[in-house]
């Protein structure tokens, strides 16, 4: 890519314009001294000029006094008595973390009960999504259900239809596994063009947790399921929407599908289906039925509302693909990402998430020049099947425009496609299963933009 192509459109060349008057003074002062790495201190000055919280003061120069006042003047927390234990029986994040919230995308839905909230990927570390920041998708509102009254039924092509209480399910041998859950419509707004500004809204309908529960096959066997003729399983929720989905038998007989009650060491959160939800590794979130009340074994698929009217993928031919379940290999750089501003030139750790509904992530490559040259990123352990994988790569930003991309390859050899490749086959109206490579444009002024290349 030619730099001119960028600067002609979006790049603001001079940093002066986004600084306060004090900031500009600093810029000139630093400039006179011949220092080029002035952006950070200028930015800090600008921030200090307008914002009171000490956390905003990020410059790290040696002050005239001969030392940082944060070091020289001992703070209250170093000289006083702190708070007692159990001020909060179920602890909460620091008060300085209030910006990290799951959020709705304005205008996406008309109601708040059939809606979505997006997980703040740009602020998360590692691969586990804190349960309170797990993305939400409700079809008819969420409930906090009394677990002592919740029942789970197995019926259909079984020897004996069975009913289980939560007590009984939690007595059975359990498994604990890390898996990602991604909405089939994640990145759906971006099929045709850029529509939303940040990683939270482009990719935030994905989360990853350690789930604990009982393999569904165990419960089917307890009911004496006909696994020879029973080729499909219907899962059904116990809430108002009574969500139903046809679950692939191959993932049940392999032992992968399980009914979960635990999430990240605690019980499921109500928004995530307390007290019982289905976990269908690698398959889109709509199949992970919440408030799970029943599964039915049958010899035909069910064509439920969310596999016959929604969650079907429109192709250019006018045909819809039905029963598209697998979330194909995908990745996104979470920082730096859209809507962020880099504080300075110099060293950065580019970090992001990769995943595949077909197994483990084998490698992730990162480009900072819009896809011309790529470097392999470091995959952080653990790398697990059908779970998020964290990747990192070193980067020294020279202050020039850069387009950051990540490209994941999974253990089947499948390589995450570009928008051009995806659209050439599926058009732009599929809504679901957009796993294209994401591009973030880092501008000279440090501000990062969501862009698509064409």
């Amino acid at each position, binding site marked *: 890519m030619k730099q001119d*192509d*960028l600067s002609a459109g*979006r790049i603001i060349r001079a940093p002066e314009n986004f*600084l306060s*008057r004090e900031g500009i003074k600093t810029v000139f002062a630093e400039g006179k001294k011949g220092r080029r790495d002035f952006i950070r201190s200028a930015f800090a000055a600008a921030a200090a000029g*307008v914002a009171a*919280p000490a*956390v*905003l003061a990020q410059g790290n120069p040696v002050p005239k006094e001969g030392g940082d006042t944060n070091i020289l003047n001992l703070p209250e927390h170093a000289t006083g008595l702190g708070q007692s234990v159990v001020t909060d029986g179920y602890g909460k994040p620091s008060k300085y973390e209030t*910006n990290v*919230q799951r*959020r709705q995308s*304005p205008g996406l839905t*008309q109601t708040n*009960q059939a809606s979505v909230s997006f997980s703040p990927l740009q602020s998360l570390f590692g691969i586990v999504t804190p349960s309170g920041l797990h993305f939400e998708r409700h*079809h008819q509102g969420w409930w906090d259900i009394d677990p002592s009254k919740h029942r789970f*039924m197995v*019926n259909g092509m079984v020897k004996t*239809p*069975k009913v*289980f209480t939560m007590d*009984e399910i939690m007595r059975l041998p359990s498994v604990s596994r890390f898996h990602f859950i991604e909405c089939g419509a994640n990145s759906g707004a971006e099929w045709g063009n*850029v529509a*939303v*500004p*940040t990683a939270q809204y482009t990719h935030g309908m994905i989360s990853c947790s350690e789930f604990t529960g009982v393999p569904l096959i165990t419960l089917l066997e307890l009911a004496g399921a006909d696994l020879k003729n029973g080729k499909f399983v219907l899962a059904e929720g116990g809430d*108002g*929407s*009574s969500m139903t989905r046809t679950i*692939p038998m191959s*993932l049940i007989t392999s032992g992968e599908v399980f009914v979960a009650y635990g999430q990240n060491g605690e019980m499921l959160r109500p928004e995530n289906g307390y007290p019982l939800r289905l976990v269908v590794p690698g398959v889109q979130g709509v199949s992970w039925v919440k408030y799970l009340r*029943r599964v039915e074994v049958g010899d035909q698929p069910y*064509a439920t*509302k969310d596999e*016959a*009217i929604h969650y079907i*993928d*429109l192709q250019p031919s006018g*045909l819809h*693909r*039905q029963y598209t*379940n*697998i979330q*194909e290999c995908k990745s996104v750089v979470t*920082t*730096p990402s859209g809507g*962020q501003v880099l504080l300075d030139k110099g060293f950065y*750790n580019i970090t992001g998430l990769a995943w595949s509904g077909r197994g483990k992530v084998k490698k992730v490559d990162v480009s900072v020049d819009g896809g011309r*040259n790529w470097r392999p990123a470091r995959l952080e352990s653990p790398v697990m099947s059908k779970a998020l994988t964290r990747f990192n790569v070193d980067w020294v930003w020279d202050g020039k425009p850069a387009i950051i991309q990540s*490209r994941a390859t999974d253990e089947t050899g499948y390589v995450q*496609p*570009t928008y*051009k490749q995806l659209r050439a086959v*599926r058009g732009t109206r599929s809504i679901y*299963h957009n796993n294209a490579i994401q591009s973030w444009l880092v501008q000279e*002024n440090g*501000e990062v933009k969501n862009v*698509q*290349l*064409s």
Partner: protein
Amino acid sequence: MSSFRNAVIAAAVMAAAGGTFAQADSRFPGIGRAATPKEVAAWDIDVRPDFKGLPKGSGSVAKGQDIWESKCAHCHGVFGDSGEVFSPVVGGTTAEDVKTGRVAKLKDSTVGRTTFMKVATLSTVFDYINRAMPWTAPKSLSTDEVYAVTAFLLNLSGVVPDDFTLSDKNIADVQKRMPNRNGMTTQHAMWPGKEFNGVKVPDVKNVACMKDCATEPSVGSFLPDFARNAHGNLAEQNRMIGPQRGADTTVPEGKAPAKVVESAKPAAASGGADAKAAIALLTKHSCVACHGVDKKIVGPGFNEVAKKHADKADYLASKIKSGGSGVWGPIPMPAQALPEADARVIAAWIAAGAAK
């Protein structure tokens, strides 16, 4: 002592005679029990494309229209074509589509998609209305009412005539007239397993080129400047510590931040106990399905109502009970069957300004 011993013997005899645990999987004794036929009937309500599970019954287009106008139209519009709350149910299908089983307008990228343009299986429509509609009172329709509403929608879509009565006897014939019945394919690689005889190899292929790769020539799509703040101030959506901050999108790019960037705080309850009680009632009676506390949804936001009808608690209480239309727009508000006392609490709260 002897009574304890007798009890143990009795239990052993029962087990030997095929008592409580005899049916259980030998690996996990004591876990689960047989579901009764009554329990299975209560929950096993799904209807499959071959109409397995369909309950016996019938309903006419005319009856369906009555039910629709009283229970469905306020969200979906009188003719099922409103997109104000949910995507339109009806529209976009033609008599030719009924013949071919393929909706021609699905090829037209300028046309939005309705339920009847997409759905191939009539069982899906029946099943979904039966299990999840009306939205705020799911599973409240009788079987015959579900038939009637389904018949009405089929009539609006030009699938059945005005005088039609849909029943378990003729539903399979109506399936043969569904406008998009031939519009689905399972020829893809995204179903785990062989049940649909899909394809093995994924449809999109990329190669992991590492050096001097062909790239797209330029930035082809980005957010326009006017959308800069459409998702709220991004400065408040990023952590205040670390390698970067969120951009202040309250000012145009390239301008100094206009104000102190404060941490986002969850909305604090400032309306006191009365507001809390009223807001709890709004949720309990599903008012918030159609009215936001501070924004329009289907009906006006409570803040808007408060502005227009300040201090008119009696009027508001009666409007809540009776419903109405024409004051705020074309979509009617149905009469609400909530206790008088609850209506008064809500009305008083609105009349006092609808504080959060």
